[in-house]
């Protein structure tokens, strides 16, 4: 075998090189085609977003003047006026309100879902199967079905027009999806470390805090992110439970500007929409690394 390589003539080498060059050329062409297609499709998908950002710097007249996204004379009117809103409050107030919902909700979700998932993943207790079926059951149940009973319940409790209905259910691991996500992730973590911790004298809870949680961080960040973004986007929840304008989160505030103005000031709405997007984008890019690790690791890591 090695003999034939040493004694092969120049012609054979030349031919091999030509073949390799042709192969490389074909690869490059196919790569170029692929990237072109992907770029075009990507642009088409992103165009509404690009337009949104561009249009937020346009005047109202210009917005409906054409389909282009580059403002001819960029103006900040939309931002300045939109921030003031048509209510006595600035948009800053609505952002703060949103934060008041998101912060407890996200933190409580991560904590409660972790504890519940840990329980299901690591302990055997009477009724475990039924309880787990119940959790998965709520996962499959359409949200709409529980709206009315929930509303009546919170009405009884006197929680209407407060943020409690929006985050308290999450504080008790009400989001079955997150429990499920963490559970899958936990199942992929070997028990040895926890057993070692227990032999080292840790209680189950200490094992959770000191050993499991550090390994679970990527998944917990995913949960936090999902919850953050979904709460940011949630419109129906606040619409049902919050009635006074001073407590509106941004999702309602955006709609408010459409309701109250006779002729919509589109540039204001678009400008505020852009601002509303920012927190989610910011948080996402900050924790992107963990996020991807978290949602993929649950399935593949052994």
């Amino acid at each position, binding site marked *: 075998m090695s003999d034939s390589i040493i004694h092969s003539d120049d012609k054979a080498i030349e031919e091999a090189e030509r073949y390799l060059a042709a192969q490389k050329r074909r690869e490059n062409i196919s790569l170029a085609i692929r990237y072109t297609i992907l770029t075009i499709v990507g642009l088409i998908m992103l165009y509404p977003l690009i337009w949104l950002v561009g249009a937020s710097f346009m005047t109202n007249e210009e917005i409906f003047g054409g389909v282009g996204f580059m403002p001819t004379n960029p103006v900040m009117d939309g931002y300045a006026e939109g921030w003031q809103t048509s209510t006595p409050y600035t948009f800053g107030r609505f952002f703060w309100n949103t934060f008041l919902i998101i912060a407890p909700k996200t933190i409580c979700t991560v904590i409660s879902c972790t504890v519940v998932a840990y329980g299901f993943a690591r302990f055997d207790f009477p009724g475990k199967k039924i309880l787990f079926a119940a959790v998965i059951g709520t996962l499959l149940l359409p949200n709409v079905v529980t709206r009315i009973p929930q509303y009546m319940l919170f009405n009884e409790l006197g929680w209407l027009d407060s943020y409690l209905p929006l985050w308290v259910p999450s504080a008790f691991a009400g989001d079955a999806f997150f429990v499920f996500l963490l559970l899958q992730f936990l199942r992929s973590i*070997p028990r*040895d470390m926890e*057993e*070692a*911790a*227990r*032999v*080292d004298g840790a*209680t189950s809870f200490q094992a959770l805090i000191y050993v499991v949680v550090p*390994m679970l961080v990527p998944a917990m960040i995913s949960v936090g992110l999902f919850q953050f973004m979904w709460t940011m986007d949630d419109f129906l929840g606040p619409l049902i439970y919050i009635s006074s304008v001073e407590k509106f989160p941004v999702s309602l505030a955006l709609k408010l500007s459409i309701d109250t103005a006779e002729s919509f000031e589109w540039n204001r709405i678009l400008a505020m929409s852009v601002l509303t997007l920012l927190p989610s984008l910011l948080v996402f890019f900050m924790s992107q690394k963990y996020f991807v690790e978290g949602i993929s690791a649950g399935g593949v890591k052994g």
Partner: protein
Amino acid sequence: MAQLTIRNLEKVYSGTVKALHGINLDVKDGEFMVLVGPSGCAKSTTLRMIAGLETVSGGHITIGERVVNNLPPGDRGIAMVFQNYALYPHMKVRKNLSFGLKLAGENKEEIAKRVAEVAEVLEIEPLLDRLPKQLSGGQAQRVALGRALIKKPEVFLFDEPLSNLDAKLRASMRVRITDLHRRLKEQGQSSTVVYVTHDQVEAMTMGDRICVMKDGRIMQVDDPETLYARPANAFVAGFIGMPEMNLVNATLSQGESGPVVTFGDQSIQFGDNLAGRLEAGTAGDVTFGVRPQHFRLAEAGEHALVAKVSKADFLGHEVDVHISIGGQRFTIVLPVEDFRKANVDGAIRIRPEEERVFIFDRTSGLNVSLA
């Protein structure tokens, strides 16, 4: 004092599957006890029950003077080394070592002192500021060993700690662990060890005594030499020793000058030694056992078995010869020269050494040639 006593220990899974059938075992203070057996024999389950990682379905476990059945693992005075090291992945080696002490509320100076001690003994000082993923298998296992050592437990539990290491490293770790055990014993520290393995070489080289298990039952508990020389039953006989002991179906009858063992069309006459060892009334269908090393070439004219050679594996200094006698397969080990000399037309004439053959009851498997 930290002797470990196990009485009628049972493990039942999901109400029906019995994994452990009421075993009794005494591990003396400072003893190195090896639990060995094929996979599924419940040796690991037993260890995990001692550790408190599995619940006890019946019987009790006593460490020192305390019945520990219902104590959490941390309160049992045990430390455990796991097969997969089970180091805490996010903690540096130093923290891995000190985690248990910290939970126990030990003060900082004491912790630092003990970490330094253990690191020195195990030669892991340069690794103290590394994360587990930056360690090789052998280093990780040394850290795991350190994590057990630092607690100064009454009983050390090892769950197949060397099976993830390569052969060479395994050999050196074997020596390290036995050295460590000896040193602890000399220093008068608690050094009772229960060591689980499926590797009989580990069992034979490390254990003061070995407990051979099968299907949730103890087959025999003895020191390595006794286990090899006087197996209590066919299972232990076959499990201990390399290559495996030949165990073949045979018929035992009484000849003119002693017992005669017949397989197929061949039989061999034994003398007073075997006759003296046999339990009274043993005859008929039995299992005949003899180790591959305990055959020798027959002298010319001597009464011998004629064996057909089907395959010979040359191992350098000796040959594993696969033969058949009267339709029964045997493996025997011979020196290379002997085999060359004796092998005539694919047949050799051999004799088992009478002092080392065993007769087992065919149904119960018990050794009936130990008297």
